[in-house]
């Protein structure tokens, strides 16, 4: 409704008069500024999430030693620097929550959805720029609220990022009341922001494409963001509904998940994972899309099997709705359902496999330029494969009996979310950095950062598979309590040291990001010699993006085309053989 008030030409007139600082950089309706706002916000949350991970790792590696500088924490968290189990549980909960909802999701969807969709489609801005701004500020408020939870009495939510009822439903079981409520409110508010964003992306992709930008000329990054937006749109309201029910259980005494008065405990899990599995794909599909763009650019070759890549994306998005039960094999759910979910889960692995082979096919017979984004993209493929393959173990229900809720799962999720999504984010940030800020990030530092991250990342997460195979449970505050886990202490220490190193080398990235903003080499319009529409405009692009509406003549991956001398052929370049889309008729 509010949207009906939005002007049709979002950008055209606005440029005419000078905007105040506040309107230009804070309450901006420019999709590029909003994308950068999301970027900065998510990096801060990435740092918070990482710090929490370090505390968790310290406790697991050195359970008998106080946390360095832990004395600075209040007594209710870490008396004398010794983490309390309840605080550890809060850390585990919040590490997951922050990383999933406030780091990776906004990084992929918020940052690149905003930044790339209008630019790559030849649109002046989003369909609803004011809604877009509201979306950011609502997400930002949700983030502040989420962090505020650490300061309430009873501590922050401690029932895991999955917030399984009844642990999350009744303060008696955790001692947490306000924290859990804040968690639920924040998630519901963030959900609102996500839905607003998704609605914007979908409308923009459908309606604001430049002439000639047909569906199958859209870059895979845009396809992926589009499909992701649909998933966000449909999955998030499920979580919001569930969160509201749980919030009412906590506050006004409803009984949705209260088994003592007609409610059902397992209903929460069904609702959560019915949202949660599409969410998993929300966290990886945009990464896959952007990596496809970058690998084609790095390999100087068209994406191998563009159409099958698109269909793989779409089929993952469809199948993503019928596999949620594989998170619940051991939950007491009907075992026959377990069989169905196992088969659907096995099937969903196929499109992922297709994508991996197509990326390899793209590199095959290419002329690969290993610029930093390309390094991270190849790293993404290499790591995502491990995450995908380890998923097959837990898809097999009998094997899952053993590895469910062990570190094998932790390894798996980090291979997908860190090795996958975060490597793709590093790739995408370095790739589009020159467009965003007009300067190149330092390539040498970038390469050192990549190799160190790649090394320490694998040292951190690969051994977690072995922990899982030895039966090491997740979310365990002190593994030394179990005799069968005691021999794993050295491995845990090794992982902790690796994780600390991994965290430390991210300073390189942060420094490179900040320094390049001011001192980086000036980037031209098209530093990577890429084909997309965003590379036809200045870096950074002006308000309104395109001086005149661009016309698209071909797909986004015409690298090394025999038609031209150079090894790239921009989407907007008109060759003698090209026909104007307007002239070609509808």
């Amino acid at each position, binding site marked *: 409704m509010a949207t009906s008030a939005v002007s049709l030409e979002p950008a055209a007139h606005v440029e005419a008069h000078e905007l105040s600082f506040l309107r230009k950089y804070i309450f901006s309706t420019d999709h590029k500024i909003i994308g950068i706002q999301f970027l900065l916000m998510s990096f801060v949350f990435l740092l918070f999430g990482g710090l929490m991970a370090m505390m968790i790792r310290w406790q697991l590696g050195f359970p008998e030693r106080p946390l360095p500088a832990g004395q600075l924490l209040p007594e209710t968290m870490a008396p004398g620097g010794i983490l309390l189990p309840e605080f550890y549980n809060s850390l585990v909960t919040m590490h997951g929550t922050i990383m999933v909802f406030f780091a990776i999701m906004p990084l992929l969807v918020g940052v690149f959805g905003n930044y790339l969709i209008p630019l790559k489609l030849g649109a002046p801005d989003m369909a609803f720029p004011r809604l877009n701004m509201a979306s950011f500020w609502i997400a930002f408020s949700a983030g502040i609220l989420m962090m505020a939870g650490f300061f309430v*009495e009873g501590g922050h939510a401690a029932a895991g990022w999955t917030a399984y009822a009844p642990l999350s439903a009744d303060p008696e079981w955790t001692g947490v009341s306000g924290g859990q409520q804040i968690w639920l409110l924040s998630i519901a508010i963030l959900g609102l922001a996500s839905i607003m964003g998704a609605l914007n992306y979908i409308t923009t992709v459908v309606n604001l494409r430049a002439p000639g930008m047909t569906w199958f000329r859209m870059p895979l990054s845009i396809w992926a963001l589009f499909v992701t937006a649909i998933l966000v749109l449909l999955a998030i309201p499920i979580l919001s509904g569930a969160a509201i029910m749980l919030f009412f259980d906590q506050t006004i005494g409803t009984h949705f998940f209260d088994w003592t008065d007609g409610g059902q405990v397992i209903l929460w899990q069904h609702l959560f994972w019915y949202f949660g599995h599409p969410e998993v794909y929300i966290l990886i599909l945009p990464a896959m899309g952007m990596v496809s763009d970058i690998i084609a650019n790095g390999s100087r070759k068209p994406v191998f099997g563009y159409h099958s890549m698109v269909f793989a994306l779409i089929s993952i998005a469809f199948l993503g709705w019928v596999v949620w039960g594989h998170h619940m094999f051991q939950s007491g759910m009907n075992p026959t359902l377990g069989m169905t979910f196992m088969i659907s889960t096995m099937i969903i692995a196929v499109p992922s496999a297709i994508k991996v082979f197509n990326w390899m096919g793209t590199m095959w017979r290419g002329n690969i330029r290993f610029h930093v984004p390309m390094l991270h993209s190849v790293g993404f493929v290499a790591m995502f494969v491990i995450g995908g393959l380890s998923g097959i173990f837990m898809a097999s229900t009998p094997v899952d009996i053993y590895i469910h809720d062990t570190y094998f799962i932790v390894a798996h999720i980090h291979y997908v979310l860190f090795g996958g999504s975060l490597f793709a984010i590093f790739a995408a940030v370095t790739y589009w950095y020159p467009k965003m800020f007009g300067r190149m990030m330092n390539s040498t530092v970038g390469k050192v950062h990549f190799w160190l991250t790649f090394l320490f990342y694998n040292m951190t997460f690969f051994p977690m598979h072995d922990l899982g195979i030895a039966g090491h449970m997740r979310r365990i505050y002190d593994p030394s309590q179990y005799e069968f886990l005691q021999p794993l202490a050295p491995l845990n220490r090794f992982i902790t040291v690796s994780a600390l190193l991994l965290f430390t080398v991210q300073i390189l990235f942060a420094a490179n990001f900040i320094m390049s903003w001011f001192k980086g080499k000036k980037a031209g319009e098209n530093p990577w010699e890429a084909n997309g529409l965003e590379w036809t405009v200045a870096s950074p692009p002006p308000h309104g993006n395109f001086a005149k509406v661009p016309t698209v003549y071909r797909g986004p991956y015409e690298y090394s085309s025999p038609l031209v001398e150079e090894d790239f052929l921009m989407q907007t370049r008109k060759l003698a053989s090209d026909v104007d889309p307007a002239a070609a008729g509808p």
Partner: protein
Amino acid sequence: MRRFWVTSCLFAFLGCGGGDGGSGGGGGAAETAPLGNASISGMVMFSGDAPANPAIDMSEEPECAAKHTDGPTNPIVSVTDGHLANVFVRVVGGLPGGPYPVPSEPATIDQNGCLYVPRVVGVMVGQTLAITNSDPLLHNIKAVPTENRLFNISQPRAGMTSNRIFTAPEIMVPFECSVHGWMNAYAGVVEHPYFAVSGADGSFTISGLPAGTYQVEAWHETLGTQSGDVTVEADGSATLTFTFGG
């Protein structure tokens, strides 16, 4: 509904004066002289055969079992020669209005040998209750009061201390340890300092009273409550005996 308004929303963290521990020390109230020097002392007796206390299976808690040379039992009804311990005695009527001085000394409760020591403790509103762990293993202290804020905190190591302050009188706040299902304790939270817990010999003393006639109530976790009236003169002392039946 009440819980909603009390705990929910953004404002919870602004008003966390509730019962947070951490600061140590007393309630911060200025020390004032007691209102009088009279005292009530007395005895809690148990008539008849004391019921047997249930044995505790500590076989999976060797550190605790080691502290109990003879098989540990759960001291629910603790009777020695007809004297009943762990009875919470407090003045319920006849007191002049407050405010009463809050002791700066904390009340203490220890977890030792997988039992609460003492099992019953009295604490004033605003007074610190120091909960310590003398066992080299995890205890959690879970209290689900009706008048005060609930808490559920843990002490994974020996030597840890947590301080809690209660904000409203409540008879009694039950404590339990979820790790050791047999561990129970009770804290009587009173708005004045005129309370006591009967010792192993059944005796108790309430002192610092002004002259007057008081109604006194004695509470036991399984045997119920009893009350009695007593009059003391200024600087005098009176005796009172409660007898619980078996």
